[in-house]
C-alpha cells in the first residue's frame, strides 16, 4: 500500500476495521461449525484443520512470491474466512487432500491470482466448491450419517484420523445420500414426492441439521442465528439474504402447490444444501457482490432463481455454487448500471429541472 499522509479530512474515524469485520463473520460461523464437527466426529475436525492450515500456507507462499507485505495480509483473517467457508462445504469424511485442494483453489485461484484481497471476481469458497465437485465427484458426494462425538456411534479419534489421513477405509456402513441427492435420484426414477419424503429425515431434523450433508451446512437454524447476529451488528445488510431466500421460497412454493408430487416443498429447499449458508455468508461477501442496495436485491434474487432452476432441472442436486459464480460474473455490470441517484440529479444523471412556477408565484 502506498504511504501518503493525507491532509484532507476526515481527521477522525469510526473504529471499524477489516480484521474486525472478518473476525465477526468467523464468530458468527462458530456455532454451525461446532455443531458440524460435533455430529460428524473427529474426521470432520481433522479435515477442517487441514483446510485452514493449508490456506495459511498457500497464502504465505503467494504473498512471498508476489513480494507483497505478508503480515498485514495474513492478519486480516480474510484468507482464514475463505478457507473456513470452503471447509464447511466439504463432505465431513473427505480425505485430507480434498481439504488441501479446496484451500488451494480458494486462495490461489480464487483470490491471489487476481491480486489479493478485494480484487477477485468470484467468491473464493464457491469457486473451490465447484472446482472440487466437478473434479472429484465421488469424494465430493460421499456423505455420512451423523455420529456425534463422545456418543456410542463415535468411531473414536484414531478412526477419525485414519478416515482423514489414511487410505479410504471401509465405511460403507455409514455412508448415505444427502436429502438433496436422494430426492434428485428418486425423482429421476419417477417416484413422487410424498413417497420420497417418507424415506427422508423429518423437517425438524433438517432444520436443526441432524442429517447427512456438508461439514457445516446442515444446521439451517444455527447458520440463521449467526446471520441474524451479523445483521444486527450491521456487518451485513439484509437485501441480498432476503432476496435470495424469498426468491427460492416463492418459486418453490409456486411449483410445489401447483404440482406437489413433482416439486419439493419450499421448506425442503430452505433447510437443505448450502442455501442458508449462502444467504448469510456467501451472497453477503462484499468483494464479489454489488455495492448498492438495489444491486444487492437483484443479486440475491438472481442467485435464488438460478438455485431453484438448477436444483429442479439441472444435473446436480445442489446449485448454490453455480448460481453464485454465475451472478458474480454480472456484479460489475450491476454496479455500473445501478448507481444510486446523485443529489440534485435525475437517475439518468441530468441536473434536476427548476420548477418554473413556485408556490409563491401562484398566490
Amino acid at each position: 500500500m502506498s504511504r501518503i499522509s493525507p491532509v484532507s479530512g476526515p481527521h477522525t474515524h469510526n473504529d471499524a476495521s477489516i480484521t474486525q469485520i472478518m473476525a465477526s463473520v468467523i464468530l458468527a460461523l462458530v456455532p454451525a461449525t461446532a455443531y458440524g464437527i460435533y455430529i460428524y466426529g473427529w474426521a470432520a475436525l481433522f479435515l477442517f484443520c487441514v483446510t485452514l492450515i493449508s490456506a495459511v500456507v498457500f497464502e504465505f507462499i503467494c504473498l512471498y512470491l508476489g513480494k507483497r507485505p505478508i503480515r498485514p495480509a495474513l492478519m486480516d483473517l480474510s484468507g482464514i474466512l475463505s478457507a473456513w467457508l470452503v471447509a464447511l462445504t466439504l463432505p465431513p469424511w473427505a480425505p485430507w487432500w480434498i481439504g488441501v485442494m479446496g484451500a488451494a483453489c480458494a486462495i490461489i485461484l480464487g483470490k491471489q491470482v487476481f491480486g489479493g484481497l478485494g480484487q477477485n471476481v468470484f467468491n473464493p469458497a464457491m469457486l473451490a466448491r465447484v472446482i472440487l465437485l466437478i473434479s472429484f465427484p465421488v469424494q465430493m458426494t460421499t456423505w455420512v450419517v451423523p455420529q456425534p462425538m463422545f456418543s456410542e456411534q463415535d468411531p473414536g479419534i484414531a478412526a477419525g484420523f485414519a478416515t482423514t489421513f489414511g487410505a479410504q477405509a471401509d465405511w460403507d456402513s455409514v455412508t448415505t445420500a444427502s436429502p438433496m441427492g436422494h430426492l434428485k435420484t428418486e425423482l429421476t426414477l419417477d417416484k413422487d414426492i410424498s413417497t420420497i419424503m417418507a424415506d427422508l429425515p423429518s423437517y425438524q431434523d433438517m432444520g436443526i441439521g441432524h442429517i447427512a450433508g456438508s461439514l457445516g451446512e446442515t444446521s439451517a437454524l444455527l447458520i440463521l442465528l449467526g446471520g441474524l447476529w451479523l445483521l444486527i451488528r450491521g456487518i451485513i445488510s439484509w437485501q441480498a439474504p432476503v432476496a435470495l431466500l424469498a426468491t427460492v421460497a416463492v418459486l418453490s412454493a409456486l411449483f410445489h402447490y401447483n404440482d406437489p408430487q413433482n416439486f419439493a416443498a419450499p421448506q425442503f429447499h430452505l433447510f437443505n444444501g448450502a442455501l442458508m449458508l449462502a444467504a448469510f455468508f456467501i451472497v453477503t461477501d462484499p468483494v464479489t457482490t454489488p455495492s448498492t442496495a438495489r444491486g444487492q436485491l437483484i443479486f440475491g434474487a438472481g442467485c435464488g432463481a438460478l438455485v431453484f432452476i438448477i436444483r429442479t432441472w439441472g444435473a446436480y442436486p445442489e446449485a448454490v455454487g453455480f448460481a453464485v459464480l454465475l451472478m458474480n460474473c454480472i456484479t460489475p455490470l450491476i454496479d455500473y448500471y445501478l448507481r444510486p441517484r446523485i443529489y440534485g440529479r435525475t437517475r439518468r444523471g441530468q441536473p434536476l429541472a427548476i420548477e418554473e412556477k413556485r408556490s409563491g408565484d401562484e398566490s
Partner: protein
Amino acid sequence: MRLFKFKGGVHPEGNKGATHCAIEQLPLPARLYVPLQQHIGAPATPVVKAGDKVLKGQLIAQSQGAVSAAVHAPSSGTIVDIAEHQAPHPSGLPVECIIIATDGKEQWIDLDVPKEPFHLSEKEIARRISDAGIVGLGGATFPSALKFNLGLKQRVETLVINGAECEPFLTSDDRLMQERTQKIVEGIRIMALGLNAQQTIIAVEDNKPLAVHAMTAACESYNDTNVLTVPTRYPMGSEKHLVFTVTGKEIPAGKLAADIGVMVHNAATAYAVYDAIYEGRPLVSRIVTVAGDAIRQPRNLEVLFGTLASELIDYCNGFEQEPARLLMGGPLMGLVIPNVNVPIIKGSNGIIALSQKEVRMGEQSPCIRCSRCVSACPCGLMPLDMAANIKAGNFDRAEDYGINDCISCGSCGYVCPANIPLVHFFNYAKGELKARAVAKQQQEYTSELAKQRQTRMEKIEKEKAAMAARAAAAKKAREAAAKAKAEQEEKEATS
C-alpha cells in the same frame, strides 16, 4: 413543520463538551498578522503602508474584483509591515499579511450607525454588508454581500439560517446562539429584509437544546421566523443537505440555492450583520472554539483576526499531549495547519487538536468493497469506484461517476474500515480535472486565435491579390492608353 431526511450521512461522536464554556474575550495580542486573503476569491488590496497609524475598524485593504471582501484593522495600532507570513493552510506556504503592532487602546474609528436600521433599502443593506467585509462565517467564507446582491435579482422565498454546527467539537455558533440570541435574531431580521424573504427558518441540530431554547424564545413574536430542530446527523450543515432537510427541495446540480428560491446564511454571519448594521462595526473578530482531546482546557474565545493560534492555545493552558493532528475547523472537514504560528481568519470557527486516539487512523488496507462508503455518502455517489478509478489514473471515469457532485464532507472516509483516504483522492482528482478543463479552455482559445489569424491572413492575402489585380489592370490600362497615345502621335506625325 415537516422535516425531510437526506440519504446517507454519519453519526460521529459529538464531543460538544465546550457547549458549557461561556465566550471569553482573548486578551489583546501585541501583534496581529492580518492576511489579505481571508475569503474565497481575489485577495484584498492594501490601502495602508508600513508606519501608518490605524484605528480599530479602519479599512486597511479593499475588496478587489468581482468576488472579494474588504479587510479592516482588528485593533488600533501601527502598521509594522506588509509582508509574507505562514498561512492557515496545509501547505504552510506564506501569504501576504498586514502586520499591526497594537497600541492597547482598542480605539474605534468613527462608526456610521444608521438611525433607523429597519428603514434601510435592500441595496443599502447589501452595501453596508459589503463595506463591513462580511463573509460566510460557517467556514466557506464566500463574500456575503454577493449573496445579497443575488437576492436583489432573484426572488428569495425562504431564508435559512444555518445553526446546525454539525462538526464534532465545534461549539462557537452554539455559544453565540445561547449568549447573544437577541442580536442574532435582529441580524436575521435585517437579512430577511435585505433579501425580501417571505419566511425565515433557523435550523439548529437537536444536540444543542440550550441554543434551540434561547432562539425559540427570541423568535416567538415573529410569525415569519421559525426555529426548526433538525436531527443531529453529519453533514447537516452542508448547504445542499440543510436546504433539503428543511424544505424538501434539492438544489439542482450546478445551480445555487437561490435558483430554487432559498438563501442560506450562517448563524455567526447573522451576528456579524447585526454588528455591521446596528453598530456600524466592520467584521474584525469572531468566536473560535479551542478544543480537541489534546487541548488542556477547551474554551470558546472571541478573537481578533490576525491573532496567532499559539495565543489561543496558550490561553487554554496549552496541549495536554502532542497533537497528532492540529486543525483549523472541525475534524471532518477542517484543514490541517502546519504549526501554531498561523493567524485566525474570518473562516476559523475552531482550532482543534486531536490525539492519535481520536484520529483512529490505522494502517491503510485494500478496499474490500464493503460499500459502507456508498451508504454513508449523502450525495448518492459511489466513493469506492471513484477512488479506484482515480488510483488507476482514470479521471474521465471518475467524472462520469459524479466526482464533481462530491462536497468533500468526508463521511465516506469516516466509515471506511480499510482507512483509505478517499477525500484525499477526490480532492486530488478535482484539482486535476479543473487543471485539465483550464488547459482545454486555453487550448481552445489558442486554436480559436490561430483560426482567426488564419482567416485574417487569408483576407489580407485576398485583398493583396485584389489590389495587385487592380494595380495590374490599371497599369495595363495606362499602358494601353500610353500606347494608344503613342500610336496616335505617331499617326499624327506621319500624317
